């Protein structure tokens, strides 16, 4: 088993955090191997940011595979840049609120999540990434939901006041993921 995931969006949307949380959960709570590979330009906010996560039961080879099993896109440029790297039958998770470009493939599964909209409804646009992460775990169950949440909880330990907001965002995402199965 080897799952290759690409997460892409604008700098500041929390792309790297999704990838790091996935890799951290794998490291802490499973016997699986993982690699997190970030790529970014020189920009901080507003530039493009993307990262690759590999989850495997054996040795991880290429940190950035030629083709992806799962693609999580948070903005239009990322959709257009990476859509052709998704394997036939692969899963595309889109932040449906702002990813509005036409998806020119009919051989993939599309999981639409109104991430930005729901994050703003929850009162903080920054939880977009946690919603998308919830949707990803809910749909793929690449590892158990509890494992993911306990990692988020652990990572946010120093900002405990943010836990309820993130829990709400994660659960909302989970629901979208499960609903789309």
């Amino acid at each position: 088993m080897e799952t290759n995931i690409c997460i892409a969006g604008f700098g500041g949307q929390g792309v790297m955090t999704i990838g790091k949380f996935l890799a951290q959960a794998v490291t802490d709570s499973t016997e699986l191997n993982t690699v997190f590979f970030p790529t970014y330009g020189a920009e901080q906010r507003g530039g493009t940011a993307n990262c690759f996560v590999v989850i495997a039961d054996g040795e991880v080879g290429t940190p950035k595979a030629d083709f992806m099993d799962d693609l999580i896109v948070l903005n239009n440029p990322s959709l257009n840049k990476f859509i052709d790297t998704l394997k036939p039958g692969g899963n595309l998770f889109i932040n449906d609120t702002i990813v509005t470009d036409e998806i020119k493939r009919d051989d993939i599964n599309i999981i639409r999540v109104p991430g930005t909209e729901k994050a703003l409804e929850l009162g903080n646009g920054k939880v977009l990434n946690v919603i998308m992460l919830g949707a990803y775990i809910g749909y793929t169950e690449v590892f158990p939901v509890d494992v993911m949440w306990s990692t988020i909880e652990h990572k946010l330990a120093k900002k405990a006041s943010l836990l309820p907001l993130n829990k709400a965002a994660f659960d909302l995402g989970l629901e979208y993921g499960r609903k789309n199965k």
Partner: protein
Amino acid sequence: MERVLMKGCEAIAEAAVRSGCRFFAGYPITPQNEIPEYMARRLPEVGGQFVQSESEVAAINMVYGNAAGGVRAMTSSSSCGISLKSEGVSYCAMARLPIVYVNVSRGGPGVGTIQPAQQDYHQATKASGNGGFRMRVFAPATVQEAVDMTYAAFDYADKDRNPVLVLADGVIGSILEPVVLPPQKTEEEVAAIKDSKSEWAAVGHQLGSRAWINPGGWDNILYENCNKDADAMYQSWADEAEAELYKVEDAEVIITSYGISARISKSAVDALRAEGIKAGLVRAKTVFPFPNKAYDAINYDICKGIVDVEMSIPAQFVDDVKIAVDGRAPITTVLRSAGNMLSKGAIIDAAKAML
């Protein structure tokens, strides 16, 4: 053993501290900034010293000074920054100072890109400065290997009294992977390491038994004798070259590489095997000394060709492969450079074309 998720650069820095490194000087450059950043926080915790120097030249000379004082000392940089350190590394080699330095290499030549590449191979293995000195050069393919090699590098440096280079790349430096960290040397062990150097190090001697840390001199005969001693040491390393042989025995096509490229190559070998194609991998773990003997394990009666894979245009690693293979099989190359990643597919296609 507990595994922790660490970024390559930070894991290298932690491994150095655990190996007893107590001085680091460096100057910022992407993609290795997390090494000095980590050291700035970590070294004071163990009574070590961190200096963000005014330049790469200053950093390597501060490392020279600390190594001369018997302290395990390190610097790091990336590609063009490593070029700036060349003079100081050569001085360390002549003065027979044990230092460790890390090149988290990026695209080049010139200023280069900030993305990963392997374009410093010849510089690393053949001419890291003037004068023809040699060093052990380790090429990690995973974060775990980067940790283990950095940890061991300090022992090799002390054993040889010579610089050691860890030749990483921007991928190894920036990925996060689970690693098992080696044990931290105790303060007593660190002190004992320093004490073991007191015979030659500038640590304060009685009158009449002065320590000379000398990067040069005017006596031609003496100088040549130093070169002969160093050469004998370089020759003695030949049997210590390290390589990984993967599914080589029955291979009809061999992929050969090092560092991050070898890791991608290994997954290409698995993909080829899954298609029923007998592919194998020869991976250099030390690129100096070069593991020539590893290439003798190839069965040249059935091996139809060798694919050299590296993130460098023009190819460089291939020059050493040619010497090791010595005409026993044809060699082709799969190359990228300037911060562009290799694709597994391109390696698979090249391997199939050899059959």
